[in-house]
């Protein structure tokens, strides 16, 4: 009996131990007797496994791009043109900040037609008591190898195309002031030294077809001090790309020939631009009219500084610099619709323009016209890419640009 008792007692101990272990293993939370203690236990458990949020690869890339947009790297690339008609252009742009908001930059550009540009400059904004004055200065050198010249006047033909080449060294200062938010005024003085050469490209060079009588200033390479002043009533929102507001401007330019005054001349430029948004900018009717007129009939304006029409933002069915004369008038009407407010515009447009040797010779029945359609990818305040296809008397013409037409 004594021995049996010992054995049964041992079994009971085993039962008790097994039961306790099983109970504890099966119910780790059973020690909690209140909801509050249960939640506290869960919070403590969670606190043991906290880890810092790790963005995935896509988010890391987007974060880097976002930071680059807000705080761009000092060296960037762009596709700004060196000179209209130069074709696809690549630029390396170096930008540095100094002071509060001032910047200085260096730019080197090269196009598929071997147009070249080197420029350095600085811009100092927020000057003056009301911080409305912006001062800027720049110096640079440009080489345009095959600029088109079709003769002077409207009666020129497509077959008359020749090319000329010029190199320009320039340096100047400019002041921009907003007397009121809607009243910008600007003035500048720039030295412009030109060297003219035979044109490159497939067509003949200018001196093979034209003479100083048909191309004023042909054979000379004058230097100018170019001064200008401009005022406008500008109700457009800030930024290059806008869908509302207007600008009505008047400007005066004086080119002083420093090599004897043979080619000194003055010009006035007047412009009117208006965007009319319709149904909360679902559509926009945009229109612009310009007049550029040389003052005085006896001044001699070199052919490469005559007012011109043609290219990406006037008479878009024609090549850049297609029409030249002492006076130029043009108008553009665009009906824009907005498939995507954030990024995409479409437009149908009508361009009209003419040049003349006398301002009185600008007549309504002498305008040459074209129509076209365009697709524009844009950001909130600037154009990313614009493709306009236009058709006129010269046939079809495609414009690809990263600038707004107006």
């Amino acid at each position, binding site marked *: 009996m004594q021995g049996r008792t010992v*054995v*049964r007692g041992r*079994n*009971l101990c*085993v*039962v008790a131990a*097994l*039961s306790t272990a*099983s*109970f504890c293993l*099966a*119910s*780790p*939370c*059973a020690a*909690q*007797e*209140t*909801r*509050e203690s*249960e*939640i*506290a236990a869960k*919070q*403590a458990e*969670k*606190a043991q496994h906290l880890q*810092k*949020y790790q*963005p995935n690869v*896509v*988010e890391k890339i*987007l*974060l880097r791009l*976002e930071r680059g947009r807000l705080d761009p790297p000092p060296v960037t690339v762009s596709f700004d043109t060196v000179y209209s008609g130069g074709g696809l252009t690549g630029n390396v742009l170096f930008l540095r*900040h*100094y*002071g*509060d*908001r*001032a910047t200085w930059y260096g730019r080197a550009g090269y196009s598929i037609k071997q147009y070249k540009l080197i420029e350095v400059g600085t811009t100092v904004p*927020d000057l003056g008591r*009301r*911080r409305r004055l912006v001062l800027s200065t720049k110096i640079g050198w440009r080489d345009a190898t095959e600029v088109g010249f079709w003769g002077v006047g409207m009666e020129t033909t497509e077959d008359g195309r020749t090319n000329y080449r010029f190199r320009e060294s320039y340096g100047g200062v400019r002041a921009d002031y907003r007397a009121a938010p809607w009243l910008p005024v600007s003035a500048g003085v720039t030295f412009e030294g030109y060297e003219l050469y035979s044109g490159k490209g497939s067509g003949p060079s200018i001196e093979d077809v034209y003479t100083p009588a048909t191309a004023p200033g042909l054979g000379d390479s004058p230097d100018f001090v170019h001064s200008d002043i401009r005022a406008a009533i500008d109700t457009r929102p800030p930024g290059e790309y806008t869908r509302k507001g207007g600008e009505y401007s008047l400007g005066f330019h004086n080119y002083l020939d420093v090599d004897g005054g043979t080619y000194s001349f003055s010009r006035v430029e007047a412009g009117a631009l208006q965007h009319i948004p319709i149904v909360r900018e679902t559509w926009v009717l945009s229109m612009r009219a310009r007049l550029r007129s040389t003052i005085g009939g006896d001044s001699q304006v070199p052919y490469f500084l005559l007012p011109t029409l043609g290219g990406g933002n006037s008479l878009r069915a024609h090549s850049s610099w297609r029409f030249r004369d002492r006076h130029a008038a043009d108008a553009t009407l665009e009906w824009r619709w907005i498939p995507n407010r954030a990024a995409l515009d479409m437009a149908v447009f009508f361009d009209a323009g003419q040049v003349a040797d006398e301002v009185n010779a600008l007549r309504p029945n002498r305008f040459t016209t074209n129509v076209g359609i365009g697709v524009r990818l844009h950001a909130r305040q600037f154009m990313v890419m614009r493709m306009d296809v236009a058709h006129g008397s010269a046939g079809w013409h495609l414009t690809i640009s990263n600038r707004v037409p107006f």
Partner: protein
Amino acid sequence: MRTPAWFVATTTAAVLVIASSHAAAPKFYPDDPLPREPETQDASRAEISEVDLFSDLLVNMFMKPGDVTPSVRAGNINTIDEVPDSNWFTNRVGTVPLTGADITRGANVGKGPAPGRWTVISAKLGGAAPGFRVHDSQGEVWFLTLDIKRAPRAATGAIAVASRLYWALGYQQVESYLASFRPGDLDIPETTVYQTRTGHERPMTPEDIDQVLNISARNADGSYRVMA
């Protein structure tokens, strides 16, 4: 016939295991429903984590982030499916009587910036609306938000209304007071640092304040309305 001891022990253990597994998660505790969520952990070492808003937009528009397990019960509700009070939420509307005066007062417990001269201590770093931080004449720090010129009362009014509605709904809100000041009421000590857009730091000047005020809406009497 005597039952073997090993059989008794095994059976008892099995019964206890089954019983204990049922007892592991009781459906209700004596303190249910919990009126306030316990806060037992120290969150003071939380670190800032930058969220890319564009990525956030893309993920939430075109993907299905979050717990993919279906039919999971919300983790922050009590046993009667209500949100208990916590450090971010307090049951107000629908649970306690709220008068118009209560909602108008919202989270405010004081009287706002003390009258007198205010000392600018820093510029406002984030957000679209202009503003800066000041000490009032009692030494209290206030974060001031102004309205932009083309939208008078828009930002300050939206903050005033939204913060009170959210407070009434139960969400934690900071105190917010409508106040006004005149440019002459501001002092700028030499110790106040201004960080330029280019990252350069220098003492703040009256022109820096003017720059903020130039883009801000001004009252007819020449003062500026602010949300403090």
